[in-house]
């Protein structure tokens, strides 16, 4: 089966190779910033609290992530806004 998958170019996302790459990329963002575990979650909560004072949010689609390009990290926060609070 594995050979068939490989033969037809099916991408196994749960492969050891992809898992390793994914884990590495996440780990190194923290390493490079010297960011302690859990710190980001605290920030996320605080940011959510601030934005929630101004907007009603769709909590399910809120997305919060650290991304990396060329060894530089970017904080990407995506809040789905439902309506402004007055």
């Amino acid at each position: 089966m594995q050979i068939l998958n490989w033969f037809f170019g099916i991408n196994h996302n749960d492969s050891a190779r992809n898992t390793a790459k994914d884990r590495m990329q996440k780990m190194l963002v923290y390493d490079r910033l010297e960011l302690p575990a859990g710190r980001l979650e605290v920030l996320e909560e605080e940011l959510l609290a601030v934005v929630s004072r101004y907007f009603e949010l769709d909590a399910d689609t809120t997305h919060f992530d650290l991304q990396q390009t060329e060894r530089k990290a970017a904080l990407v926060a995506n809040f789905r806004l439902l309506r402004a609070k007055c």
Partner: protein
Amino acid sequence: MNGRVIVVTSGKGGVGKTTASANIGVALANTGVSVALVDMDIGLRNLDILMGLENRVVYNLVDVVEERCKLRQALVRDKRLPNLSLLPAAQTRDKTAVNAEQMKSLCQELKNLFEFVIVDSPAGIESGFQNAIAGASEAIIITTPEMSAVRDADRIIGLLEARKDEIEQYKLVVNRIRPAMVRNADMMSVDDVLDILSVKLLGVVPEDEEIIISTNKGEPVSGTDNTRSGLAFRNIARRLRGEEVPLLDLDIPNGNWLNRIFTFLNPVKV
């Protein structure tokens, strides 16, 4: 003469720093340039064994630094390659026997005598590593496609990046790649490692049992023909000299169906 001082480093131990240093040194010397191999792993001397020169070590790097002998007396000339010399580490001392300033002036002296000075760094990021990079203006980072080795390589890159003024350029060598495992998606590929580390590639060396045999014989693989790892190291030496040499094609994970059939029928073993 104003030679290039290149430090070979990795962070993690056991990824092939010393093997790479020996092989790159031999391959460079085979291209005709003069090369000094410097073993900076003070207390854990190994480069002399890989070079098959362990019986000819009289003085060592610490003797030179502490002025018990002249630099020329400590250099062990390789009989097979007269333009290649080894400056052995001391076996009975530790990393504190040399400091960064002493290393800088030693490298300065070596630069005047050799076109290439290859410094084999100890594992770790402490004083031994700091001293090893002290006199260098270029670095080769060795990693394997394993998570722990890549993480340590990343740490090293961070430290080299912080010393941009001295280390003008650094490049990566991915060692011990197993194309069959990459093809089966069991292991990270060279491209995966480059994506993760965002660093320039100097070369790729396949996993090769010949390395063990050559170490036992004291004859680095890059000095002999017919080994894939030896060819990989010779290519690295040519690239260091500014030549453009294509990478060894070790796997074709996303080729077209013809390629797939071809790789399937002719598995690349290394």
